[in-house]
C-alpha cells in the first residue's frame, strides 16, 4: 500500500507552530511611527449589537484624525473588540487590551454589565477607563474608582429633571409611569422619585413594567390609562417608545406625555409611531437630533454629515447613536490634545479630569462639558424640549440636578 505518511516529527513541529501562532500574538506589530493605542469593547454581536455602530463610527473618526496628521504628531490606534455584551468576554478582551496590546487607556467600553465586570480590574491596574457608554450613575465615583469616568447624562439626573419640571409646572399631577424592568429603567425611576421627594407617594398613582422580550406594551398603557392619571412618564427603549406613543394616542388618553431621552429620536421613534400622534411630547436632550429640521444647516451638523459621507458610509444618518459616538470621540480627542506629548496613563487621567467648559458644537447650545478630580460625570445638564409635530422646540433653561 502506498499511503502518505507523516513522520512523527512533522506533527510535533506542526503543533508547535500552531501554538506559536496562538500565543505569540501581535508582538511584532511595533513600528517606528509614534502611536497612541486606545482600546474598547463593543457589542458587535449579541443582543445589543445595534449599538455596535458607536465603535465603528469611532474607528472611522480616528482614521480621519490620522489622515489629518494625528494629534500632536501622534497617530491614534483604536483597538475595538467584540464582547457580544457578555461580561466574561469583556473581562477577557479588556485583559487582552491592557496586558497584551498595552493600550494607554480604555475608551467607551459599552454597557452597564460589561463595565461592572471590569470596574475593579481597571482601577487596580490604574488604566484610564474613560467615557463609558452607559447612563448608570455609579461611574461617577472618583473616591472609590478614580480611574473610571462616565459620559452620558446619567439616568438618575434625567429622572430628577422631569421631577423638577413637574413640581414646578404641575404640582398636582397624577403620574403614571411605564419603565423597562432592568437597571436602566429602575435608575430613571429612582431619579424621578428622588426628584419628587416626599410628594412621590401621592403624585405617582400607577407604575407598570415590561420586559425587553415582551412583544408590545399595549396592555400596560391601557392599565395606566385606567388609573386616571393625567401625566405619563414613558421610560422605554425605542421599539417600545414608539408603541407607547401610538397606543396612548389611539386609546384617546391625553396625558402630559414625558418620554425619556433614550426614545426621543424623531427618526427611529416618533416617525414610526406617527408624527401627528407625538405632538406635545416632552423630553430632555443634550445633543442635536440629525432628523430635527432646525439643525439642517447647522455648521456642526454639516460637518458631521460630511464625515459620515466620507469615512462612515455604512452608518445610518438617522441613528442618534452616530451623533452620540461622534461627540464622545471628539471629547476624547480633546483630552489627548490637552496631553501635549505626555501620553502616560496618569497624564491622560489628569487631562480627562481637566475639561473646563468644553463646548462641543453637536451638543445643544448652552450645554458644556465639565470634569474635575471630584467630578467624573462630563454631562450633567439637559434641556427640556417639546415636539410640535415637525421638530422639537427647546424651552426653559438648561437644567442640571442642582439647578432649580
Amino acid at each position: 500500500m502506498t499511503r502518505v505518511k507523516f513522520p512523527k516529527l512533522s506533527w510535533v513541529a506542526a503543533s508547535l507552530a500552531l501554538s506559536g501562532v496562538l500565543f505569540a500574538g501581535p508582538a511584532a506589530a511595533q513600528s517606528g511611527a509614534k502611536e497612541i493605542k486606545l482600546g474598547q469593547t463593543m457589542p458587535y454581536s449579541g443582543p445589543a449589537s445595534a449599538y455596535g455602530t458607536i465603535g465603528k463610527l469611532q474607528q472611522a473618526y480616528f482614521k480621519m484624525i490620522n489622515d489629518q496628521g494625528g494629534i500632536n504628531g501622534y497617530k491614534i490606534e483604536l483597538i475595538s473588540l467584540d464582547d457580544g455584551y457578555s461580561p466574561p468576554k469583556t473581562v477577557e478582551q479588556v485583559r487582552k487590551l491592557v496586558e497584551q496590546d498595552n493600550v494607554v487607556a480604555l475608551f467607551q467600553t459599552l454597557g452597564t454589565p460589561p463595565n461592572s465586570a471590569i470596574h475593579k480590574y481597571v482601577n487596580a491596574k490604574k488604566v484610564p477607563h474613560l467615557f463609558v457608554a452607559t447612563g448608570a450613575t455609579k461611574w461617577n465615583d472618583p473616591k472609590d474608582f478614580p480611574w473610571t469616568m462616565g459620559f452620558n447624562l446619567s439616568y438618575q439626573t434625567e429622572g430628577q429633571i422631569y421631577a423638577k419640571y413637574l413640581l414646578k409646572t404641575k404640582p398636582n399631577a397624577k403620574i403614571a409611569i411605564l419603565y423597562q424592568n432592568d437597571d436602566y429603567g429602575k435608575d430613571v425611576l429612582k431619579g424621578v422619585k428622588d426628584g419628587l421627594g416626599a410628594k412621590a407617594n401621592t403624585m405617582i398613582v400607577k407604575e407598570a413594567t415590561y420586559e425587553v422580550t415582551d412583544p408590545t406594551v399595549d396592555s400596560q398603557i391601557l392599565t395606566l390609562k385606567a388609573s386616571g392619571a393625567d401625566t405619563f412618564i414613558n421610560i422605554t427603549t425605542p421599539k417600545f417608545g414608539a408603541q407607547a406613543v401610538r397606543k396612548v394616542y389611539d386609546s384617546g388618553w391625553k396625558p402630559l406625555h414625558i418620554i425619556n431621552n433614550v426614545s426621543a429620536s424623531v427618526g427611529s421613534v416618533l416617525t414610526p409611531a406617527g408624527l401627528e400622534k407625538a405632538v406635545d411630547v416632552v423630553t430632555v436632550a443634550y445633543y442635536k437630533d440629525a432628523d430635527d429640521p432646525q439643525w439642517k444647516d447647522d455648521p456642526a451638523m454639516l460637518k458631521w454629515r460630511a464625515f459620515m459621507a466620507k469615512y462612515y458610509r455604512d452608518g445610518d444618518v438617522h441613528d442618534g447613536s452616530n451623533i452620540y459616538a461622534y461627540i464622545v470621540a471628539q471629547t476624547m480627542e480633546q483630552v489627548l490634545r490637552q496631553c501635549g506629548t505626555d501620553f502616560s496613563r496618569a497624564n491622560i487621567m489628569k487631562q480627562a479630569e481637566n475639561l473646563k467648559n468644553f463646548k462641543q458644537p453637536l451638543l445643544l447650545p448652552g450645554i458644556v462639558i465639565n470634569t474635575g478630580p471630584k467630578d467624573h460625570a462630563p454631562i450633567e445638564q439637559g434641556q427640556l424640549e417639546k415636539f410640535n409635530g415637525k421638530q422639537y422646540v427647546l424651552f426653559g433653561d438648561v437644567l442640571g440636578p442642582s439647578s432649580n
Partner: protein
Amino acid sequence: MQTPAIQTPAIRADAAAPTTRIGQPALSQRKILGLVVLLVIACAVPFLLGNYRIFQLTMALSYSIALLGLNMLTGFNGQISLGHGAFFAIGAYTAAILMDKANFPYWATIPVAGVVCLVAGFLFGLPALRLEGLYLALATFALGVAMPQILKHKSLEHYTGGAMGIVIIKPDAPEWLPVSQDQWLYFFTLAWTVLLFFLGWNLLRGRIGRALVAIRDQPIAAQAMGVNTAMYKSITFGISALYTGIAGALAAIGVQFASPDSFNFFLSLTFVVGMVVGGLASISGALYGALFIQFIPNIADDISKAAPWAIYGVFLIGFMYVMPGGVAGAIRYLRHRWSKS
C-alpha cells in the same frame, strides 16, 4: 451460528464501537507516561505565559469540566441538553452569593456549588425522564432561555443583585507560595480539573459507564438486563449538573463577576458545540472542546473583524468535515495508524 443468549447486543455493540473506550483495563504504561508529561506541561505553562494567557487557560479548564459534565449526559447517556448554561449559572451564582452575602472563603464555595447543582439537576432530571430525545432537548432549552430572567426576578434580587450582578473579590495565593493571583487561580482550577477528570474516568470506565452506554444504545435491552433506567438517567442528570455547576463556580471566581448577561442561551449552545467538536462520549474530548470554544472565536475575530461568526462557522464545518468523531476521534485514529506503521 447462533450467538449465546447471554451476550446481549447492547454490550457487544458497545465493545465494538471505537468511539467508546469503556471496559478497558487500567491505563497502559505509555498512557500513564503521557498523562504525567501532560500534567508537567500544565504545571509549567503558567510560568511561561503572561497573566492574560493564564487567565484564558483558566477559563478553558473550567469549560472543560462543564463539557465533561455535558458529555456524560449527552455523549455517554444519549440525553440531549440545550440548557447546561443554566447549571453553569446556578454554580456561578452559588459561589458568588456565598462569597458576597455569607463571607465564605472562595475555596469552600466550590463543593457547595456542586451539591446545589447536583440536587437541581436530579430534580430536573426526574420529570425529564418522561421526555425522550428532541423533547428533552426542548425542555432543557426552556431552562436555558429562562435562567437569565429568573436571575433578574424581583424576589431574588436581594441575593442576585438583579441585572447589575455580583462582583467577586479576586482570591490571593497563600502567603507561602510565591505566585501571582492569576497563577494561583490557574493551579486552583487545574487541581479541580484533575480531580474531576479522574473521578469521571473512574465512573465511566466501570459498571456505571457500561450501564449509561447501554441505556443510550439499547434502552429496552438495558432494562431487561436489570439496569434501573429511570434511576440511572436522573442520577446522570444530577452528576452532569454537578460538574457543570463546579465549572460555573470556578469560572465566576476567575472572571470575578456574575450577572444574568454572562449566562445567556448562547452559552448553552457553545457547550454543545464544544462537546461535539471535542468528541462525543470521550473524556479527553472535553479538553479539546474547551480549547476550541475558548480560542477559536478569538482567532476568527483576528482573521476577519467584519464577519467573525462566518469564519467561526467555517472552522466549525471544517472541524466536523475533517474530524467526524471530533478531535478526540481524530487523535485516536491517528494513534491507531501510528502504532500500526
